[in-house]
């Protein structure tokens, strides 16, 4: 073992609630609620998904799969990766979203919304 580094058991990322049901906690300081909801929606083809608040900074996601032989590790893993992608989409939308609105407005506007105001009044 490397001196100064202590091995620690990894924290389980989900709790198994039965043969076909798991729950995991998502920290809302890392993931926007919209990202959690979008990820949950995407999984509604293979699971019943329940979102419940857990304190003020966490959301509990309960995934109940309809398949009796579902691989719960794989299911949760896929959900976590989907969560990351949805959060990235939220981040990208926050930075590029106003540009998207401006581009669409410019596409259909009669006026030039992008004109750079390089002449001061009275010039």
């Amino acid at each position: 073992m490397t001196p100064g580094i202590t091995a620690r058991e990894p924290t389980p990322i989900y709790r198994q609630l039965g043969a076909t049901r798991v729950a995991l906690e998502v920290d809302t300081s890392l993931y926007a609620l919209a990202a959690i909801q979008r990820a949950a929606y995407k999984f509604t083809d293979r699971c019943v998904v329940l979102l419940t608040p857990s304190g003020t900074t966490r959301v509990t996601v309960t995934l109940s799969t309809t398949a009796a032989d579902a691989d719960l590790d794989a299911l949760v893993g896929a959900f976590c990766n989907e969560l990351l992608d949805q959060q990235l989409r939220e981040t990208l939308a926050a930075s590029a979203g106003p540009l998207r609105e401006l581009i669409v407005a410019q596409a259909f506007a009669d006026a030039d919304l992008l004109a750079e105001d390089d002449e001061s009044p009275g010039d």
Partner: protein
Amino acid sequence: MGQPFRGVECFAPLAAYQLLPFRFMRWEDGSVLLVSDVGEHHFLEADEFRRLTCYELDHRTATYLDLKAKHFLWDPDSLTPLDLVATKYRTKKDFLRGFTGLHIFVVTLRCDHSCTYCQVSRVTEDRTTFDMSDETARRAIDLLFRSPSPTLKVEFQGGEPLLTMERITDIVEAIEERNVTEQRRIEFVIATNLSTLDDGILAFCKAHDVHLSTSLDGPAWLHDQNRPTRARNSHTRTIEQIERARAALGHDRVSALMTTTARSLAHPREIVREYLRHGFTEIFLRSVSPYGFAVKTGQAALYEAHQFVQFYREALDEIISANREGRAVVEVYAQLLLRKILTPFPTHYVDLQSPAGTGIGAVVYNYDGDVYASDEARMLAAMGDKSFRLGDLHTDTYEELFGSDVLQALIQGSVLETMPGCSECAFLPYCGADPIYHHATQGDIIGHRPTSAFCAKHMGILRHLFTLLRAGDQFVTDLFTSWAWQQPTRV
């Protein structure tokens, strides 16, 4: 001994770029597909994607320049890229200009076929109460010319429209007379099984430049099972009549569509070869629609979207192989999608638009005067569900029909950019909403994308097309590019 100093380029600042709006989708091989709002696409390796989104992409790399050229990112020292993207966006939404271009006249519900998947609950040949009256036709023509579109496509449907050829004749002549002053570009199409086609009809079609669109489902054994007639000779008769029409009108004035039934699924290559055998240069691989007789006979529920996608992939492979062997043949659905993927232009295919083309791209005048937002809407009405009836030709004005609450709800409910599951999908610029399909299959016009067969079908087909484009086969890339830049002719 290593180099004492690194080159000056190593000390250049990382580019202070900004990202333009795009969507992304993970790929099976670990790469990421990026698609911009205007349909430009680019594959990145996972690490490149991470660097892009962390604003760490080196501005000296080819990737950076590619992404900049395709407007995935920009250097915010000039607003010109935004203007260019806005222009591209306007071009992509050009299908909205001109408003309704396709006007479908359902001149009769009578038919001499009993097709297992027919989307109209048809009646027998001799019930003339199911023909469009002169008064109804006249009102439909008035409405046609209220459309601001400079290009109008008039399509005659049924039933079997040739069973009331005299009504078609009247309508075509009335439209042509009116167009002397209107000066629109008008195209006429009759969607027909050709069974009653005769020399008189052909002479009329020749004189008035009327295009014929028919159905050919595959080899005789398959076609005859799908499209039975009393004489049990539907395939033979169809082929004879196709040849007759080609001889009279010209080869390109007769096109054919196929409908995929459960019987078709195991025979994609046979179906393609049947089309090649009869000299077609276009094949339109279509899944069965969940309306009308297709529902009554159970055809609509006989296969899943993934089965159709598998069928489609094999048929497309056969078509590509034929092209490799020197037979120029196009798959029309791929062509529609590739036009959106590989060119700056839209298509006018109403099912693949956002908002949907219901009413604003196409409208249907039923034999009885009912006006529907699409062909599917009147098929649904034939099953007793008139949710998408816009009104009545005899009592409602153009403004009442096209400003109706029904049409506004359809438009508002088919904007992909606002729809759950679609708004973040990378395929959004290429796809459509089809609100009536989702009403019919899932009970509401927006629907549930994770379990939607429409979504599964289009995800499957688009993924396949991108996989083929990514595979780097130069022949396929060139073929797809040539398809994309040709205007789809019969949709």
